[in-house]
């Protein structure tokens, strides 16, 4: 019998994890073709920060080397960006004209960095921080230039800033908020983090709103100007102000999208049951995830369904974050901000630079934000995901998993 054809658009972590899951449970069910826009096999995007920081090499962060595709009979079109899909003919076509037919299509297009639409955003030396190319551009700039400005004091921005600093640059982080990582931390932890990073030599401009990037004669950025008129020198500007799900192709395919491609609990697009979407480009029950753990869970469900088992359902994920700056431990998970109907337990130890916040709803842990000591992060995450009753543990909770 002729095998079904599965085409995957996007060669990133969520998609390839789906293939791995699929190969595990239904090897040989599909002829698989993968299109990837980057000229690399699947690598661990999360580990770009250690690469930038010089702690790991590019080779070390490759998850699935070339021969993995070969060994599993997967046709890989690396460096070929898919530009159109004909849903009636069920064909996919790349920029260079490469075409592939599909019975099932898996969209794993990920997301794009959001570039602030500011004057000078097109100057040389203004980069995003998303992929290997960006990382290499930053590493190269660090060898030549002195001043770096990172716009965005979130997770990614701080990792970029830290990496550039370690590569010898003078780094200023520009952040529009009152404190760093306000999506992951409250003001206390944000202030602790800032203090720790300042000790490492980073500069911070909080409540700063960028007005424009100024260029030199060569068309390269040379400074950043703020709305209040201040200027800081900048030979490299890294924009790390957020990501946007990459849904251009899906929109062109007339799949129903909101801020990402809308999928159901089996990760099928609501518009076309032959087409699945996983990862940052997918919107499930209103949420598009940007973290790796939920994407893997999605991949597992999608693989299960593609394997025609049909029993997996994705019901959403609790998420957790870690900052990958060596020596700075930071963890947040779930609804760590709290709010109506939730209760907070907070602990801080300025001497060890530790701050912890746990958010409870009734007797259940629904969120955690740990700074400085993340040893118990996994335990909290487990309690949180399992929705365990922690009422009896409550006074112990902050002090870690009870030993026996």
């Amino acid at each position, binding site marked *: 019998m002729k095998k079904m054809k599965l085409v995957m658009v996007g060669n990133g972590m969520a998609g390839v994890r789906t293939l791995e899951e699929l190969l595990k449970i239904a090897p040989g069910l599909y002829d698989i073709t993968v299109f990837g826009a980057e000229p690399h096999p699947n690598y661990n995007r999360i580990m770009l920060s250690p690469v930038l920081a010089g702690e790991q090499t590019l080779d070390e962060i490759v998850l699935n080397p070339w021969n993995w595709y070969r060994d599993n009979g997967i046709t890989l079109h690396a460096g070929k960006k898919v530009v159109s899909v004909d849903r009636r003919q069920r064909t996919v076509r790349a920029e260079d004209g490469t075409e592939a037919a599909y019975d099932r299509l898996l969209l794993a297009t990920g997301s794009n960095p959001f570039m602030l639409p500011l004057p000078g955003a097109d100057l040389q030396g203004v980069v995003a921080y998303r992929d290997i190319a960006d990382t290499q551009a930053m590493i190269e700039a660090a060898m030549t230039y002195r001043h770096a400005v990172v716009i965005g004091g979130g997770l990614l921005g701080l990792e970029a800033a830290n990496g550039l600093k370690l590569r010898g640059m003078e780094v200023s982080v520009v952040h529009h908020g009152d404190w760093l990582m306000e999506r992951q931390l409250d003001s206390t932890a944000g202030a602790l983090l800032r203090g720790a990073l300042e000790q490492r030599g980073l500069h911070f401009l909080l409540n700063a709103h960028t007005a424009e990037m100024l260029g030199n004669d060569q068309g390269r950025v040379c400074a950043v100007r703020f709305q209040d008129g201040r200027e800081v020198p900048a030979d490299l500007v890294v924009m790390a102000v957020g990501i946007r799900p990459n849904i251009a192709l899906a929109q062109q395919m007339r799949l129903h999208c909101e801020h990402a491609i809308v999928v159901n609990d089996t990760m099928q697009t609501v518009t076309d049951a032959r087409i699945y979407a996983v990862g940052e480009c997918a919107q499930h029950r209103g949420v598009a995830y940007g973290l790796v753990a939920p994407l893997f869970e999605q991949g597992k469900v999608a693989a299960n369904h593609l394997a025609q088992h049909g029993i997996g359902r994705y019901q959403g994920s609790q998420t957790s974050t870690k900052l990958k700056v060596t020596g700075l431990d930071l963890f947040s998970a779930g609804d760590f901000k709290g709010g109506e109907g939730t209760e907070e337990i*907070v602990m801080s130890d300025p001497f060890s630079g530790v701050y912890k916040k746990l958010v409870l709803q009734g007797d259940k842990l629904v969120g955690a934000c740990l700074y400085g000591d993340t040893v118990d992060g996994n335990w909290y995450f487990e309690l949180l995901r399992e929705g365990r009753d922690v009422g009896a543990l409550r006074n112990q909770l902050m002090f870690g998993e009870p030993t026996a």
Partner: protein
Amino acid sequence: MSPSTQTRSTCPYCGVGCGVVIEAQAGQIIGVRGDPDHPANFGRLCTKGSTLHLTATAEVTRQTRLLQPMQRAARGAAPQPLGWNAALDGAAERFARVIAEHGPDAVGFYLSGQLLTEDYYVFNKLAKGLIGTNNLDTNSRLCMSSAVAGYKQTLGADAPPACYDDLQHAGCLFIVGSNTAWAHPILFRRIEDAKRANPALQIVVVDPRRTDTCEIADLHLALQPGTDVMLFHGMLHLMLREGWTQPGYIAAHTSGFDALAALVRDCTPEAVAQVCGITQNALARATRLFATSPATLSLYCMGMNQSTSGTAKNAALINLHLATAQIGRAGAGPFSLTGQPNAMGGREVGGLSNLLPAHRDMANATHRAEVAAFWGVESIPALPGKSAIEMFQAAADGEIRALWIACTNPAQSMPDQATVRRALERAEFVVVQEAFAGTATCAFADLLLPATTWGEKEGTVTNSERRISRVRAAVPPSGEARHDWTIAADFARRLAGRLGRGAALFPYRTPESVWNEHRETTRGRDLDITGMDYAMLEAAPQQWPLPAGATQGKPRLYEDGRFATADGRARFAAAPYQPVAEPRDGRYPFSLNTGRLRDQWHGMSRTGTLGRLFGHVPEPTVQMHAQDMARQHLAEGDLVYLTSRRGSIVVPVAASPDLGASQAFIAMHWGPEYLGGRSSTGTALAGVNALTTPAHCPVSKQPELKHTAVKILKAELPWSLLAMAWLPEDQALRVRAQLRALADALPFVSCVPFGGTGRTGVLLRAAGHEAPDSSLLAQIEQLLGLSGSDTLRYADPRRGQRRAVRLQREGAAAHVVGVLLAGDTRAEAWIRALLQDQLPAQDFGRQLLSFQAKAPAGVQSRGKVVCSCFGVSESAIRDRLSQCSGSGEQRLAALQGALQCGTNCGSCVPELKRMVRATEALA
């Protein structure tokens, strides 16, 4: 630097009246030591006396003293400063108006046994001479009035017939209702000396509690509270049966014995054993010792006096001395120990509502006429004025409308605080003349007048053995404070004008001029001191009587068998035994006793300024028998509602081996300044005297502070708070007062200082049904310096859990300097030791925030401080004792040699001996 000065003066605490030498420099007291030449102490001082200079530092003065006249526009408002002239004019105006509208008896003066004789004299003349009211009473009413009445009823005059020197001559010491070891430590040192010099000396202690005084006792009679009269009558019964009385002496020098003998016929040993709760053996032994010793000296204090049978108790004990002729000889006699430093002096000038100067009686028309003539006034009102209890009742009833309170703190020390508070609230005009700004009474004042205090005052005091000593100023008055007698005289002159009388009654320019006038009143009286003058007192303290022509006073009285009665015979008093006013019953099943702590004084306005004086007993507790606690399901430290028919307070409970079953004890010091809270109806809890009864002895009018029937029920206040921190010297005391006030909305609060040499901290404990608003906790943290970035924190607001631990780093080491535990405070058990003992805390990290009651390895509390002078803790003593060998005395000596404990003031020696005994010898 200017050279330091040495000024001889007298200690302002108890009635032993020790001489002190004050060292001062540049207007500041910098040291104190015992006066080696003073016959009361020969250079010794107790824990309180030896730390006097520390209560007079610039920091303490700034934080605790009343430094300028203040007035309140309305009750409850913050007082505003005003000038002395305006203050005194205003006071005179108000008093004059009240007197004009409602008569002289609408005003009252409530004074203090801590005033000097000169202060007393001027006030007494002001009330009884100028205004024409006898409404002048003092806190001596709560202290010595039963002793006064007992002496007068039997011996004819208010004169303790013995002297301290008698301790060396006694063969038997009969100590009744007196924890001498704590209340009169220097006298107790002399008792120890006497016992050492004469091991045959037999010491009997009669006290419901097994106090530290019992340490030296050969026999302790733990009688039931209030049954002393029955005991004494029973002893007389036995003496008669055994033929131990001295019929010859009785016949020659006394009257009224037959009636007494008839009365005691029913007081058989069986009856006494049953009523008093002692064995017949013990009774027999005590009786034999008393009657047959070559010389028996009784020493007694509040256990006898603070009773509805106070006069009867005093008289019944004196009966025994008369019946056995144990009086009028060296080493024999009934010796009342005065509680206050100058209760004696106050009595000498007639400073009670029923007395006139020089032991004259108000009831006696001749005496009244003598005094009126001496003062140059028309007459002295015949009716006795209101005694303390009556005075506040009258104010509560609206009868007394203006109150002048000097040097005492009735809103702390008077029984039945509900009535006292009603009185202070209802009175139209309340003047409080005080040295300290933070007393409970100050809160009720319309006018606050700053008075000088120890170290600043000039005058005289009389101690328990009738010895008059000079009090001298070492430094000028603090702030705008004035001497008490000056304030009284300045006010009197102003009032005289408004009452249409001349100011000539108050011509005094110096304390000596006041004293000289007082001296003249004593001419020909039992306390004749016309042979004394200030110059003589400059040289050395003198005992009265010392009439003109004599060169020295009389160490003991009645040696010739002639008493101060009309017929020269002592009178036996035949008062039957009466039980306490409020016997315990099913609803109030515990006998609550009150009394002193070793290192505190009265309402603690002075001792409370020193953290180290809280080392011995750090916080308020009510003590109970361990079995009573078990029966009530109470654990050590549990909060209880301590409730009498008049009120309720919340206080932690502690087991005490000193108490009998169904008895409870709380220190008298824990007034609302330190122990508070709020009832479910929103009434502020008023400290220990919210409970006590106004029932008083019908003769002496002294209230029964030593016995209140109470019930003790566990207080379920699940949210608790412990907050404590070391604080800068110039802030700690003010912070303490602020914290105390801040936490007052909670059902339970106690707030005390703690500390050691040169360091002061503050400890706040509170509890409630639920967590208070977190802003309150934030304020507490702020006051305790726990708001900074050097503080570890934990907060679970929904559960009412909050913790803050402030660490101070010194290199690699870290110490806990402040802590707040709210909600679950069980970690106090070890965190408190980390803070107070300054143990290394760098290894604990976030464990400091944890809830565990058990200490992480490495924390061991030093326990309470036994020796305050050298800061030696219980655990250090135990450790050391485990290495000592030999007899008890040898081990004590080894202990003292190694740790110095008990080698300075000696106040802790009884406790050390107890610990020595409790520890097995190595040998």
